[in-house]
């Protein structure tokens, strides 16, 4: 893995003494898409604001591209693009005017700004509405305009806060595609979301936030193994006799649970779909359905917290 571009160590934020982010540590490598996931109020946005130097760090430290956002905020902000949660633009200005303002704030000269702006608006599919006032834009268009701003800036890191919230499914798919394209442009992407499954598909690694802590971190597969203990659930629906015993005999199956007439759930430690199908065929029965439950972030997350709660109850 290449050099980390964001490194947080024991990053802490307290508002009036109340900790909101409680000493999180993580690092993001060059070129990866890193997801900060968790429910609202878990401390994701606060963590992001600390990385940008937009709010003070109470404790610990963070380095972005080797710069300290507390001491060198301009260096950080010059290289990092930020798309805030529910991004806003000046409604009385057009898309182009909004971007031009940002271009001037960055310090681009007029011609460079126009060229980059046209390219950026093309890239996010807003070239037809360049001269329309932003007041008429939908939520999805605003988000895309926000990404155009990051492109205009030639940011090395894009920090996207809840980029897909409030978008319809089609707009979400389009936006996720744009985010994937950012990765192809060698932009490191850090995104936060409370919609676990939507972003699961784009993230290389994720950190799950809960109440100001990172409780889990890694690739989705790693987390699945970690939390679900490498357990797969295989649901089988089949007609035949003595099937349950045959399932139990398959190597790797740790338990068989009858869900109803002709329906079973097999607990396994690996993918045994073909063996299960063979078992049904061998008994001369009919196989009606065979489905392997792939671990999603949602199940990992809920399972993890159920486990936590139970552990808490035992301790109490």
């Amino acid at each position: 893995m290449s050099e980390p571009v964001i490194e947080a160590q024991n990053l802490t934020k307290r508002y009036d003494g109340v900790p909101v982010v409680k000493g999180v540590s993580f690092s993001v490598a060059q070129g990866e898409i890193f997801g900060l996931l968790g429910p609202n109020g878990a401390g994701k946005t606060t963590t992001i604001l600390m990385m940008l130097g937009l709010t003070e760090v109470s404790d610990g430290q963070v380095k972005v591209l080797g710069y300290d956002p507390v001491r060198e905020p301009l260096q950080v902000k010059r290289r990092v693009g930020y798309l805030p949660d529910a991004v806003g633009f000046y409604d009385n200005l057009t898309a182009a005017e909004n971007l031009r303002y940002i271009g001037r704030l960055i310090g681009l000269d007029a011609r460079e700004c126009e060229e980059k702006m046209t390219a950026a608006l093309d890239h996010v599919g807003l070239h037809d509405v360049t001269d329309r006032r932003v007041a008429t834009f939908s939520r999805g268009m605003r988000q895309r305009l926000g990404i155009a701003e990051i492109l205009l800036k030639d940011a090395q890191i894009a920090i996207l806060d809840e980029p897909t919230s409030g978008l319809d499914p089609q707009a979400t798919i389009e936006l996720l595609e744009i985010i994937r394209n950012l990765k192809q442009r060698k932009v490191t992407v850090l995104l936060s979301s409370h919609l676990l499954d939507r972003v699961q598909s784009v993230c290389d690694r994720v950190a799950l936030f809960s109440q100001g802590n990172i409780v889990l971190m890694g690739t989705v597969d790693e987390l699945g193994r970690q939390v679900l203990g490498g357990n797969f659930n295989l649901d089988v629906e089949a007609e035949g006799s003595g099937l349950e015993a045959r399932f139990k005999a398959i190597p790797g199956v740790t338990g068989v649970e009858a869900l109803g007439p002709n329906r079973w759930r097999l607990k396994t430690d690996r993918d045994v779909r073909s063996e299960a199908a063979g078992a049904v065929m061998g008994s001369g029965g009919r196989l009606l359905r065979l489905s392997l439950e792939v671990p999603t972030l949602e199940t990992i997350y809920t399972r993890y917290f159920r486990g936590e709660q139970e552990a808490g109850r035992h301790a109490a």
Partner: protein
Amino acid sequence: MQREGSPWQGVGVVARKELSDHLSSVRMLVIELLVVVTGVVVVLVSLQQIRDVTAEDPFLLLRVFTRSGEQLSFVFVLTLLVPLIAIGLGFDLVNSEYNQRTLSRVLSQPIYRDALLFGKFLAGLATIAISLTAMWMVVIGLALATLGVPPNGEELARAALMLFVTIAYAGVWLALAMLFSVLFRSPATAALSALGLWLFISILWPFLSSHLVNVFVPASASSADELLNTLATHQAVRRVSPGALFGEIVTVLLDPAVRSTQQSQLAAMGLALIEPGSIPGAPLPLLQSVLIVWPQMVSLIAGTIVLFVIGYVIFQRQEVRA
């Protein structure tokens, strides 16, 4: 700890954008209308009077500003109108960035918060300066056209100084409006608070202050010194209002015969201030007039700076998130 980079970076960009926002807004249209209409009406009324009253006044042009036609002088209208314009431009400068959710996006660009606040203030002040200069030119132009007497250099210099002081007076109110726009997240609350304070300070305070002083300082004055002392106390308390400062400055600047800011009050009591060796009613040179009200002029500018700094400090400590 030393911050890297310049706090001024981006000020020009912000100011330019804000200025173009102001100039193209409907609000500006209303302000311009207000400015032109009041300017024309007040001047026409006072011109009527001036033509009736005097033909050989050496400072005819300046009379246009001060002469009360039907108890309504141009200066008095300015005292009330300028704060209104300033509040109208300033009450949503900062909180609108929060409400449009643009603040965090703009502040994630390589600029400091200083640039945003300062750029907005400069743009607001420039907008007011443009409006007031336009009004000033309307007045002078109308006066020239109707009086038919060319103004002398000193008159123009005094009138120009008065314009400058008016802009400084607007600065105080703009800084106040901006402070409220930092304090209150809702523009309506900010506007109402600023207007409330304006009403209190401009209209109620002059009455209230003299009552307050009368409570603490006995009104009976047996000697001239005591009388002047009492007057000075009244003045000092009244000067809490920037309008009082503005009034004092303009009275002295626009009337070369005025030798003291207390002159009009003394005159109201049927008294006159006669300094030894001076000729009553003789005009003062420009520099002398300026020296009389120099403290007041400095106070106006200082007031602007103090209000701006308070707003600045609060804004620096505010969270970006609403």
